[in-house]
């Protein structure tokens, strides 16, 4: 395994988080689809009360 001599106080590996903007956009789209479906059927239920 590679070893690394680090004289700084060890920080959490927060230096470079991978660029995941497309992922965030994709899951938010998924989330909105879930919400849209749920709300639609919810309104159908309310309508039939």
């Amino acid at each position, binding site marked *: 395994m590679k070893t690394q001599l680090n004289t700084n106080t060890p920080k959490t590996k927060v230096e470079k988080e*991978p660029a995941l903007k497309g992922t965030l956009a994709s899951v938010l789209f998924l989330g909105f689809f879930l919400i849209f479906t749920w709300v639609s059927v919810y309104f159908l*239920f309310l309508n*039939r009360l």
Partner: protein
Amino acid sequence: MMNGTWKVDARDGKLAMAHIYVAFVALALGGLAGLLQVLVRSGKFELPAGISYYTILTTHGVLLGLVLTTFFIIGFQFAAVSRTAGTLSDRVRFWGWVGFWLMTIGTAITAFYILIGEASVLYTFYAPLQAHAGFYIGLTLVVVGSWISGFAMFAHYAKWKKAHPGQVSPLLTFMSVVNMILWLICSLGVAATVLFQLIPWSLGYVDRINVLVSRTLFWYFGHPLVYFWLLPAYMIWYAIIPKIIGGKMFSDSLARMSFILFLIFSIPVGFHHQLVEPGIDPAWKYLQVVLTFMVVIPSLMTAFSMFATFEMYGRSKGATGLFGWLRKLPWGDARFFAPFIGMLFFIPAGAGGLVNASHQLNQVVHNTIWVTGHFHLTLATTVVLTFFGAAYWLIPHLTGRVMTKAMNRLAIIQTIVWSIGMIFMSSAMHFAGLLGAPRRSAFSTYGDAPQALEWIPYQIAQAVGGTILFIGIILVLIIVTNLAFFAPKGETEFPVAEVAEQAERTPLVFENWKLWIGIAVVLILIAYTVPFIDMIQNAPPGSKGFKLW
């Protein structure tokens, strides 16, 4: 550590392939049943020779929902643990074969009683409809066989742990173990109702059965059953797809965490299949609805992991912009394409599931054909297309052959055909269901009721979709037959993903089985104890058996 030329031992391969053969035979017969069903329900076709629609429906549900799934999953998992935790010992392999034969003989017995018309009770076999005792006995053998295979996998895992103290187990082995623990805990419920209620009752040793208790035990099993199906698809997504596309796993720890969350939350939730039943206090129904929503969380995590895996890979190949990484994915590779389409279909599938579980909203959709539309997305598309995609490398890997370019192209076409068929069929089912069209029903206009006549065009669309799907079944059978027997000899990789460099070391806590099983059991006790005791203490007179088909 292991490189791409690592091969599953031929003897383990034989065990896995035996399961896969049975799975695809079940697919063929169960798929044929499905075709007959949509044709009957279009109103333009009648079954010959007085065959009952409900016999065909029972065949369809049992073969596809119970046989295809259980056999493929156990076969895949044996291959996966052999690949990642080392060749099975002779003893483990022996018990794997015992499990296989028990399952196969059990399947044959149950199928026999269904086909001779003695068990048209559908794959949920609700009392007090009473099948021939042979139907239940066959299913018992299937479940017992699966337990034996489960314990064989546990033994193999234990041996690896002993040989690698303090190390985190290989991901596919870990995930297989979680899935079999889940299966074991939940199948105790169906085993209890079958062994202590249905078999003695159908043999005539007891006269009456407590119907609500039987249903509750079934659904205690029936919901985690769908996670038993889903988790192997997630295994393929997490631990295999990244290797296929040429990328790395996003996070090994988060993958394990999602599986532990499934173990904990997929069982104490059966009441969401019983939301409109009498005899259960609505407060307990609501508690189990809350727990059901918790089991959505690991799927939300999985969605993120998948997109992240794809995006990181795409950007590593120079993609820019918000969605440029999509173009870098290997669309022409059926091993990726089929599971990816499965992932895509999981979006409407999950949306429908949220509605189904939602307490009062359930009244809109319960026992309508919306529910059928839902599980044809989750099981019959997401899980099944992922399994097909895995078969495209697993079968040739185990049989010492390679998938030709032509077969790969056919597999891409198969995936597209399946998608088109499913869009027609499942969409029509969802919308007809919202209009009130029932599930599990042969063709009827309900006395020419105007509302019922409105459903017929949807049923025609379902017939179109179902026919296209059957073509898809023929295509996949051609492909797997080729891969098993006729494809050119060669070496096919069993791809296993490696973790991305920046991911952290996985903690061992995920393998603290006492902790996680303990939590799972506590949640089950909290969710079920009081209402279950209530059902027994306040039980009405039990029911005698009925054979109304």
